[in-house]
């Protein structure tokens, strides 16, 4: 018996994927905000990649100035609402809350943050606007957390901004890559609408920039170009049988899930390969789609997984089982996936070594590969003089985000190799300042 019944309607889908950080009511927000100690030089702020003045916005919520709270949040992070929901707060702000050291529940900072920003989004209240036009234009490639954050900040500085987005809708990972129980599509899009309304940048959807000619046009028409392109498809495992039907990439699986909900077919017995947060998401999602048996297979020990502990707990809570110290050798089957041939591993001096003769086949009817995403190096090589590091990441100035091609700037996953929404939002805001510095000379 599966942990979750297979959802067949939007209501059943919503029930299986119930928000783990649901919206706070006013009363809940009042009680929770009352608990904040207002620490001096607060550890939560330091733990926030976007440096939101958390005690300040919590105090504002507590005094009935929710609009002011939202302003405090957005001044530091344009993805304030999404971050409140999708951030791994357990290891960031909430993990740093001093209450943890007193065996008390940390303040629910993420939910308070979403509460305040949601109020403003729902009200449509005008908090921000574009700065006086300075006559300069910037092209932003990618309408994800990096691209949109950069666009907002540039608009505030008076730039005309065109955002080019390959997909149909904005917000990137937040809409296409985050587990549905962390944020709903409606929530992610509402924040995007709000920001677009406030700042007035133009987004060109279904407009993928992929050729040298298109880049040339941008270089001709714009004073600077911002790369917020994120990562590409799931890395190939280069294993025999990988092409079999029902052997899919986690990123692709999650994107399909976010756009098609209960219409996504999941296997009865699913094996998820990987030990990172995306693997946890894919496993948890498979279970919530009604898979009877979901196994996480990781080539090292449980304690060595890259995933946050709370993410693994969440997956276990959905009925996911762990299979550790196994490396996939082959995806077996006959046209369709019928199992994964594993070989057992042992870790010696930090190195994973296979145990000879220990092969076995774990039957399944679906394999989800959560083994990292490829960098978009093919595209990046179209940019003259753009330097990449050994892992295919864009090399840029850590303060200004300027790349080795001075008119190109970058932030987010394409630069940092894959991090949280909050990292991209924070970096891009800073990079926008770098662009301004470059174009205005101050």
């Amino acid at each position, binding site marked *: 018996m599966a942990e979750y019944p297979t959802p067949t309607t939007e209501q059943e889908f919503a029930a299986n994927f119930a928000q783990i950080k649901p919206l706070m009511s006013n009363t809940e927000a009042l009680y929770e905000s*009352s608990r904040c100690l207002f620490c001096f030089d607060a*550890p939560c702020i330091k733990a926030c990649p976007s*440096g939101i003045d958390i005690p300040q916005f919590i105090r504002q919520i507590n005094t009935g100035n929710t609009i002011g709270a939202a302003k405090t949040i957005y001044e530091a992070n344009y993805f304030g609402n999404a971050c409140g929901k999708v951030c791994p707060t357990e290891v960031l702000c909430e993990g740093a809350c001093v209450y943890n050291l007193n065996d008390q529940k940390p303040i629910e900072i993420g939910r308070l943050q979403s509460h305040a920003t949601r109020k403003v989004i729902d009200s449509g209240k005008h908090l921000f606007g574009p700065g006086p036009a300075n006559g300069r234009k910037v092209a932003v490639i990618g309408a994800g957390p990096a691209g949109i954050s950069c666009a907002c900040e540039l608009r505030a500085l008076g730039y005309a901004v065109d955002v080019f987005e390959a997909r149909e809708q904005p917000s990137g990972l937040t809409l296409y890559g985050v587990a549905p129980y962390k944020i709903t599509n409606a929530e992610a899009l509402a924040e995007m609408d709000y920001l677009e309304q406030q700042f007035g940048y133009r987004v060109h959807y279904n407009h993928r920039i992929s050729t040298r000619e298109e880049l040339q046009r941008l270089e001709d028409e714009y004073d600077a170009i911002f790369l917020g392109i994120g990562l590409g498809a799931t890395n190939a495992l280069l294993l025999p049988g990988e092409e079999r039907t029902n052997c899919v990439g986690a990123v692709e699986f999650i994107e399909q899930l976010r756009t098609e909900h209960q219409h996504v077919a999941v296997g009865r017995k699913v094996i998820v390969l990987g030990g*990172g947060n995306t693997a946890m998401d894919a496993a948890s999602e498979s279970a919530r789609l009604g898979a009877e048996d979901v196994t996480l297979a990781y080539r090292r020990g449980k304690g060595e997984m*890259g995933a946050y502990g709370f993410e693994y707990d969440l997956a276990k809570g959905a009925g996911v089982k762990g299979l550790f110290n196994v490396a996939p050798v082959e995806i077996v089957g006959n046209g369709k996936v019928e199992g994964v041939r594993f070989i057992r591993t042992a870790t010696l001096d930090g190195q994973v070594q296979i145990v000879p003769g220990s092969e076995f086949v774990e039957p399944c009817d679906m394999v989800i590969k959560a083994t*990292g995403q490829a960098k978009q190096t093919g595209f990046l090589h179209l940019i003259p003089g753009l330097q990449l590091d050994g*892992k295919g990441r864009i090399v840029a100035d*850590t*303060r200004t985000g300027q790349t080795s091609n001075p008119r190109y700037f970058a932030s987010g996953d394409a630069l940092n190799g894959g991090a949280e929404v909050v990292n991209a939002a924070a970096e891009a805001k800073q990079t926008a300042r770098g662009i301004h510095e470059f174009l205005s000379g101050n």
Partner: protein
Amino acid sequence: MPDLSINFAGIKSPNPFWLASAPPTNSGYQVMKAFDAGWGGAVWKTLGVPVVNVSSRYGGVNYRDKRLIGFNNIELISDRPLADNLREIEEVKKFFPHHAVIASLMVQSRQEWHDIVRDVTNAGADGIELNFGCPHGMCERGMGSAVGQEPEVLKTIVEWVMEVARIPVIVKLTPNISDITEPARAARAGGADAISLINTIQSIVGVDLDKFAPYPIVDGQGTNGGYCGPAVKPIALNMVKNCAQDPNVRLPISGIGGIENWRDAVEHILLGASSVQVCTAAMHFGFGIIREMTAGLEQYMTEKGFQTIYDFVGKALPNVRHWEDLNLKYQVKAHIHEDKCIGCQLCYTACEDGAHQAIRLQEGTRVPAIIEQNCVGCNLCSLVCPVEQCITMERRDDATEHLTWKERTEAGTIPVTFNDDRAGGLHHWVPEPVAALGKERHKTLPGKARALGSPQEATVSAPTATDVLSAS
């Protein structure tokens, strides 16, 4: 098993907990219910010529998520006919002959006082309380606090009452006066048997920021009300103490003001009260709070070995002294128990901004350190610390010396000129004013500082699990 019963100026009650004269004692129904729940006595909602009340009568003061730490009302005395009240008093006494029913009264003329005192006595009331405290509505008509604020008038009215009173008479005092002992002495001079205090404090509990009107709002407007609830306890305790210590008062005191649990009651008793009255807490939580109050009091008395309430009435009074009698040689200093510290640094910022700059931050840890030479032992850090027993105040003098301000004054060793080198503040350092500039601005304005771009702090994001994964 300690004995909780009292004999308050001749009024007997199974325990010292009485409901104060207020909405909870508006009817026989409520008083019966309270006695049934365990209350020892009740002071009936003030009787007189029935009033007409407004709708919208109470206002609250909330602190963060705590409701009604303060409360005010603009309700007047009983709006029910006297006959109805008298009949119900009689009925309550029939069911509860050993409980205390005290009739609160407020009328004007000598004849009215005589009549109503006889009426409530005939109805079976165990005592009378004269309401000389109500600070709103009635005082404008020459009653309530208008009487309590004029000791001579108060004395005269007490005398009128005593002319006919056959049961104990308590005078309820208003705190809306500079020296509470003046009306207390007048009550004694007039022949009263006891006093009760405090009545409510004249107040405006809040102003509606959108309607520009004080709470509670009556059709867009409001008026000053009577303030009570937990927030007024400190004021009440001080006034109870003042009356209890005054050699010219020497009357039993019924303590009122901010009592909502056994601890509050014990505090009132330790400062001289021998019965306590409760209103706001009953209005907030219902009569059921009496179970916690009696249980707590019983437990406390058992632990302290007190047989009766009278074993500890006024027990703290000898330790309440004038400032000039306190030992200037006593010295405490703050001590931070590092193992308990959670690093909120509230003590640091409190001492830095609100006290004597005697706490410093340390490299590599969020646990602050006390600068011993600058610590004046003010307690502030220990008061703001959110962790139990994390900051304690430790005695540093050897307890062999005792010198008071009074003694120093007599010995001629007090500072007397503006720049006297005997000034207390000369023995710890005070930072130079300019040292404050820019010191912590970046820490107290992090969001904005970040928004404006602080190049020196800018870095790329830290590696995450995804990084680790793709690298492995």
